[in-house]
């Protein structure tokens, strides 16, 4: 039986939104030396909407697919909706991930949240710190 869904394969083979945004409004990086995945998310925000989003990920197939899907899910959305994105939603949109690769979706959520926090910090926008994760909080990676 195939380990990966068709959607995971599609986003692994044809990742959307790959690259870097020069003069991004927010940049977030997540990674863990145990997993060996490094994700960096770049945001361009205009009128409180995610106008553009790009990612640079060096990792496994699931990490690339998670980054690709997560960026698709927040592109064109209000910042508040992007902030509400969960790793569970990313996994569902990919029609599932292998159990030992669930942490990849956690890293995608973390990288987006860090990019949004960076956007708030750069633009002097007040926020509730409790909404943002601590460094390297991927519970799966800490096992």
């Amino acid at each position, binding site marked *: 039986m*195939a*380990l*990966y869904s068709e959607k995971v*394969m599609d986003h*692994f*083979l044809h*990742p959307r939104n*790959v690259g870097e945004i020069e003069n991004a409004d927010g940049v977030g990086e997540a*990674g863990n*030396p*145990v*997993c*060996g*995945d*490094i994700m960096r998310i770049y945001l361009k925000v205009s009128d409180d909407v995610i106008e553009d989003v790009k990612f*640079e*990920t*060096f*990792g*496994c*197939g699931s*990490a*690339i697919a998670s980054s690709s899907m997560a960026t698709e899910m927040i592109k064109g959305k209000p910042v508040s909706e992007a902030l509400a994105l969960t790793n569970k939603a990313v996994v569902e949109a990919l029609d599932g991930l292998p159990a030992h690769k669930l942490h990849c979706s956690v890293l995608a959520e973390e990288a987006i949240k860090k990019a949004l926090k960076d956007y708030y910090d750069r633009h002097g926008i007040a926020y509730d710190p409790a909404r943002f994760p601590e460094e390297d909080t991927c519970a799966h990676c800490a096992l």
Partner: protein
Amino acid sequence: MTIAEMQAEIRRLKQEKNVCILAHTYQSQDIWEVADYVGDSYGLSVQAAGTDADAVIMCGVRFMAETCKILAPDKRVYLANGGAGCPMADQLDAELVRALKREYPGYAVVCYINTTAETKTECDVCVTSSSAQKVIGNMEADRILFIPDCNLGDYVAKQLPDKTFRFVHGGCPTHLRITPRDVETARRLHPDAEILVHPECHPSVTALADYVGSTSGILAHAEAGDRRAYVIGTENSIVQHLQFSCPDKAFYALSGDTICRNMKLTTLGDVLGCLRGAFGEEITLDEPVLNAAKRCIDAMLRLSQ
């Protein structure tokens, strides 16, 4: 036991049991001193293929021990610390490689040696950072799907402009911690030093370096060079090894973050425990996997002649 006592016991036991100890260059100095051979992935694979010992202990990470078993299937091969893996080697499994092959028909699949035995079964040839240019240059194929490290792949592709390359987004999390800013800082702090980096670094880093090469290439370049100072952009154990081999020169780490936790797992105590039969993990591979992966590694050894 002191380090010296432990080393003496290891030397006595390995002779008594006819065991060959292989150590990757990123291992610690105390392990280097008891190894029969120290080298990068390419050198280790050549040694593994030619050893006449009854058993081999690999001080490195899992794919290196697998490579050793593939090249010396009649020997007992042990990974000194069974917990030492390679995050990059785990990035692509056989299912993902099969999908890539369907996506890129007509491309020869070249994998970095930092892949699992299972992944190698799906690939045409493997390469190491020191052999990649020569092996791919000697291949008849001019369309290459290079996996999993796109940064090493990008560096090799620049040396072979007549071939067409495709990549996936894989890479080494340790080398990717080095940034162009680290290079700028090193230039300012050590203006007379040469900056030597590994091709697993991001292309924005290798573009700024004075020399790009495998770990054995970096060691040889720094040892033979006439500069008084060198900045090293690879796993930071190499800084210390160069301090031992060239105490009259100065060596600095390009980044304080380039520490590979997996390479640091193996200790001198693990090596002794492995020789005593208490620690270590014996590597076993199914015969079909071993044979298919061997074709991939043999192709590298043949094409790098």
